[in-house]
């Protein structure tokens, strides 16, 4: 990569971190949402005998 290694690898790594980070945060949000929805469904089932 010559003298430009820092810039080229830097941009690619940054892209990976940004997009990968977006995915990670999003999947964590999804997991949280699904568990809350599951809990709500549980509660509703118990409330309606």
């Amino acid at each position: 990569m010559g003298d430009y290694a820092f810039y080229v690898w830097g941009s690619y790594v940054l892209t990976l971190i940004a997009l990968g980070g977006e995915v990670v945060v999003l999947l964590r949000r999804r997991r949280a949402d699904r568990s809350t929805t599951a809990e709500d469904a549980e509660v509703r089932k118990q409330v309606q005998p």
Partner: protein
Amino acid sequence: MTGRTIHWYKYASPGNLYRLAGQLIPWFAAPAALLFTIGLYLGLFVAPADFQQGDAYRVLFVHVPAAWMGMLLYVLLAFYAAIGWAFNARASSMMASSLSITGAIFTFLALVTGSLWGRPTWGAWWVWDARTTSTLILLFLYIGFISLQSAIDDPRRADRAGAVLAVVGVVNVPIIYFSVQWWSTLHQGATIRIAGETTMPGSMLAPLLIMIAACWMYSIAVVLVRLRCLILETGRPRSAPTS
């Protein structure tokens, strides 16, 4: 010929939309991963070094797709927001909100990778030329939209207020771009001219197109995941956005 036509209106219901989105996601996530791998490999190792810029030009393979996605997603966002406002369609407004964060991230990436490209090639971390300045302003437009929606608690008001802002923004984008172009050419002496886009040889064009396609697939997948999260979160008291 019965019932084979798709009744799109049924996907206005969040329940159906949730299901449809869930079915679509793998069809975009898998190609995205594949295209990213191929594109990165070709861009980093196979494409030949540039005559003038050496290996530094390889930043282009992430910078250009990011810039394109930033712009395209903003227009899409405005479109969905306007539809959601005009037809009172919650699902459409949720699409707009889902698009906003991904678009902002791509725009930010475009700016940072642009800097990393500019430093070795133009000698400066930042150059106030028409394109970089317009991209910066686009990021501000995204920030405005996201801030407005997160500040308003009532989801319907947030949807509609966002729609007004997005429509006003998208209408202003040509005006802003024109004025920044004007400003840039007036002060041209102080700025460094970017080398004009030369026609690219196929070995460079291919990775670029693959990376653009990869970003498209990625965006669709990520936006659909976020959309499903928003659907699940409907009706819950709103807190600070997570992502």
